[in-house]
């Protein structure tokens, strides 16, 4: 399993860097803390993109000749996406605390980061199922469309909001941003439960998959 993990991790790491380094550089350069919101909003984009490229470079025909089961492959891939989503959430949390820790906007940004990470996780599981059901070509079309829309939407929303209200931390739902910490814990638990459910579906899809 570690061979699959190592191989697929490469794509997650390169995409994480691709989508994180530019806003981080700008953050350090311009001292505009609002850029952290871009990083938060891009989580679904980079995670989807990571799934896409790791799947495009995967050779299931080769894997099927090796002593590894579809169930193990699915678990490995899902664990990888989960691991990176959690790592990214931790990184975001640190940056958000550093940038907004003592301000009223902090909880809004944290809520936004938690929300996008939770959604991204479920989305990543969905992309894997999509790929094993319809093949990498259809996945490419789906993810690329999503990525382009995601980047454009982020840019449009970000510019408007940053100019008018100084950040998009306010995009997070009020009940999540202003509620007790347990709300975010429940959000993660719900996301993990959905993700686990998707993983079970993914095993069935992968077993029947010919891609």
């Amino acid at each position, binding site marked *: 399993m*570690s*061979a699959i993990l190592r*191989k697929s991790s490469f794509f997650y790491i390169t995409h994480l860097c691709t989508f994180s380094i530019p806003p981080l550089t700008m953050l350090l350069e311009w001292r505009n803390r609002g850029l952290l919101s871009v990083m938060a909003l891009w989580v679904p984009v980079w995670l989807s993109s990571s799934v896409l490229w790791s799947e495009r*470079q995967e*050779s299931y*025909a*080769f894997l*099927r*000749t*090796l*002593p*590894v*089961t579809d169930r*193990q492959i699915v678990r490995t891939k899902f664990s990888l996406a989960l691991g990176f989503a959690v790592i990214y959430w931790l990184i975001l949390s640190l940056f958000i605390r550093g940038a907004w820790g003592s301000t009223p906007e902090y909880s809004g940004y944290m809520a936004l980061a938690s929300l996008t990470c939770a959604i991204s996780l479920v989305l990543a599981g969905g992309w894997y199922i999509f790929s094993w059901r319809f093949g990498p070509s259809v996945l490419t079309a789906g993810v690329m469309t999503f990525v382009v829309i995601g980047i454009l939407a982020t840019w449009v929303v970000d510019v408007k909001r940053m100019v008018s209200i100084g950040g998009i931390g306010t995009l997070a739902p009020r009940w999540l941003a202003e509620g007790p910490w347990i709300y975010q814990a429940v959000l993660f638990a719900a996301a993990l439960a959905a993700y686990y459910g998707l993983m079970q579906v993914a095993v069935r899809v992968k*077993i*029947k998959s*010919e891609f």
Partner: protein
Amino acid sequence: MTPILEAKSLTKRFHDFTLRDVSVEIPSGSIVAFFGPTGAGKTTLMKLLTHQIPASSGTVRVFGLGYDDREKEIKNRIGYVPQEPNFYQDRSVEFNARFAASFFERWDGGAFYRMLDEFRVGREKVVKRLSRGQKTLFSIALALSHQADLLILDEPTAGLDIILRRTILERLRKFVADGERTVVVSSHITDGLGDIAEYVNFLSEGRLIFQSEKDELLARWKRVHFKDGALPPDLVGRLSDVRQQPFGSSGLSRDFLAIREQLAAGIASGDVKVENARLDDILIAMHQGE
């Protein structure tokens, strides 16, 4: 004796092709060949036997185990050479080998690299730069390097020159020499494989139309050469693939044992000669339904 591989009523439906109701039992310690024309379903069958694709219906058991619950154990003991090896194309031979090695319990790196050198496949070479033949050789080296008990090869000699083809066939022969390991091989040509196979199966249009021990097959199918007029017309009518030749005619008998006595006089007088039929001729005759 328990077969090393057993398939029952295997069916696989595609939108434009169906492999129907294939049942086979592969005895241990033998070389079993599946022949058939292009598009007969050989690759589909090999993929089903190795669980590369799910069957629409039917079952496969290998070493007495089912893929549903013992897939990892089975695949640890199988060496599979697909018709189109699908490695990580942008990575080196070395990377792909290390990747594969990490999954096998009984990987023999020394044997693998010796074979790679023998086959002259560069370990640093990127897979997509390998020729089709080199990819097959790389695949064969992988399949032979984890001490498999069963080798399943799909068109392994396609794209190889005559020297390498002979090398591969010799390796297959050695693989089963101890009588405990088994080779299942598919091919659209009988050249070479027909010589080493002990069991012969023939697929045509998605059906397994024939399976037999090769010796039994060759005992029944003979090519009969005869001078014109040496055989009665009804006997000639029972021959197929009748050809006119400078010294007379020849035809294929599908049941030589039944007509042997009728030929005895002709054989004694020298007007009739009998020789083993070529496997190709037999398979073509079967394909044509004769």
